[in-house]
């Protein structure tokens, strides 16, 4: 690779090459295509179920990406991430519920409250437990998450306990509202909410991507690699860990608001429980840690499987009623799910996106030689 242009160093050559290929990068086009597909989805498939899964995939992709910021980029293993999601979801639900009737300003207010609570709680978590050894940090965050879960169940006057809170959205976003047809599709509250979710999720995701590619994001990566060295370079590593914690918590909390906005129902089981935390972990591991984009694949994989794998197997039962063996197997779709998960972990130890990147990098290296 000896460079024949003396004034240009290999570093500059690489930079020039990257600048030239900025708008032809495969990754960029994949993102654009994904965004266009999601934007046109209501017109492409007229099924509420598909739209529902698409919205949830977007929300969970961002939620998992914000968790990746902690675990994959900074090496902070927290089990309180679902709690921040719940905090955001309850912010919206409870404001509208306790106000009696939904009003426009409830939405920005909920976003503000969700952000404020997330900053406050994550700062407390960081100050009290980030200095602890990793194991104690895990236990502390788990205890805190359990506490929040129990609180949401027991504090009945505030949260309506296990029953949860269903609520309506204001004005145009209400399911009842309908504004006529546009290119053959009814424009209603659902559709508008879908686009709010799409826009917000895209913005938050871009925010996360920018964060990990920023100077501060690079410091996070170096802390994960060799914290003591980072300190010797003059980085106050504790501050960066707090920054990552707060940033991740705020994004998770805003994802909670979006989730509440989309589902219009919030209960302990659906936003606070350990099951959500496990789902986040599962999605992250399947998609691949430390990639951010892996969270999109992981979230899509799990939510699509959850939604259709069970159905597919039930269909087997209906169409092949005589085959007892198949029926038995179909009843155990959860088991398949587990097997699928194990296979992914074995064959793609870095997750789907992480492994794909590795293969691409190896191919590129071979081309260069």
């Amino acid at each position, binding site marked *: 690779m000896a460079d024949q242009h003396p004034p240009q*160093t*290999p*570093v*500059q050559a*690489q*930079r020039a090459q*990257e600048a030239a290929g900025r708008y032809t990068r495969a990754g960029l086009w994949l993102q654009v295509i994904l965004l266009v597909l999601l934007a046109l989805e209501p017109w492409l498939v007229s099924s509420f179920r598909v739209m529902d899964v698409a919205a949830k995939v977007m929300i969970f992709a961002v939620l998992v990406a914000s968790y990746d910021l902690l675990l994959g980029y900074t090496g902070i293993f927290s089990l309180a991430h679902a709690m921040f999601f719940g905090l955001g979801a309850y912010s919206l639900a409870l404001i509208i519920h306790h106000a009696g009737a939904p009003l426009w300003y409830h939405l920005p207010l909920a976003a503000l409250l969700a952000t404020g609570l997330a900053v406050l709680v994550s700062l407390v978590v960081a100050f009290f437990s980030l200095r602890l050894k990793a194991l104690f940090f895990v236990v502390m965050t788990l205890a805190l998450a359990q506490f929040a879960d129990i609180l949401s169940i027991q504090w009945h006057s505030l949260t309506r306990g296990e029953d949860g809170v269903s609520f309506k959205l204001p004005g145009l976003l209400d399911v009842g509202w309908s504004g006529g047809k546009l290119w053959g599709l009814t424009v209603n509250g659902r559709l508008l909410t879908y686009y709010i979710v799409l826009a917000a999720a895209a913005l938050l995701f871009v925010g996360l991507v*920018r*964060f990990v*590619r*920023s*100077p*501060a*994001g*690079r*410091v996070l*990566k*170096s802390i994960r*690699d*060799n914290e*003591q*060295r*980072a*300190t*010797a*370079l*003059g*980085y*106050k*590593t504790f*501050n960066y860990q707090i*920054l990552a914690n707060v*940033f991740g918590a705020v994004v998770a909390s805003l994802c909670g608001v979006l989730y509440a906005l989309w589902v219009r129902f919030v209960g302990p089981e659906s936003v606070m429980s350990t099951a959500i935390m496990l789902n986040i972990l599962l999605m992250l591991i399947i998609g691949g840690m430390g990639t951010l984009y892996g969270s999109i694949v992981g979230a899509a994989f799990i939510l699509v499987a959850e939604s259709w794998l069970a159905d597919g197997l039930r269909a087997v039962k209906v169409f092949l009623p005589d085959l007892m063996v198949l029926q038995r197997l179909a009843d155990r779709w959860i088991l398949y799910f587990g097997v699928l998960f194990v296979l992914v972990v074995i064959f793609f130890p870095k997750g789907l996106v992480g492994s794909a990147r590795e293969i691409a990098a190896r191919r590129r290296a071979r081309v260069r030689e």
Partner: protein
Amino acid sequence: MAAAEPLIRSQELTVRFGGNVAVNRVSLAVEPYTLKSIIGPNGAGKTTLFNLLSGQYRPTGGRIFFKGRDITGLNAAARTHLGIGRSFQLTNIFPNLTVLENVRLALQSRAGISYIFWRNFRAYPELEDRAYELLQRVLLEGRWDAVASTLTHGEQRKLEIAILLALDPELLLLDEPTAGMSLEEVPAILELIRDIKDAGQRTILLVEHKFDMIMSLSDSIAVLKEGRLICDDAPEVVSCNPEVLEAYLGGGAKDA
């Protein structure tokens, strides 16, 4: 007026680990823009002294002054910002980042842009270019895009020095920079240290075993033995000191 003031000075510096006094009442001063070597047998406390000066360890007694200011209570990050940079005897790099990124991170710390989280880190090409220059300086530019963990031991030592230079410290603490390098690589690194010294902008404290080489390189040589400073003088004087000859050159001839 500051010429009379030593750049760094320790006063009765002491640290004990349990019953073992690793550094024992060491009072040492390094004048600005000079190179002082520290020698002594293995286990004499040289690395521990560096750890105290750079803030990795807290002393159990004594004080440290940098440009006349008491820095005993400052942590390692704060001392780095003041201008104290060190290399580690045991290689200490970011193993999973590229060679260039290792150096760039040090430059970024120095440039004070590190809390920025809305701009792309590649939006600072001057840092990358400067990092590459530093790699050229330590003869490592051929490996700029390699992952650091794939470097040979000698290459990792060079990377350490590049990282250190990137921090642009006034005071360099070099702990056996040539340890583990192949014989052919050693002269180039010692030449580099000589260059840095001759440029006249930095003060260097060097732990190095190759006695004949440091003789010509050093303005002064300090000798540690069992945690105590037994001698600190010009190279010609130190090499004639009977106690040194006995303690170091005679007894520990394996190091020479």
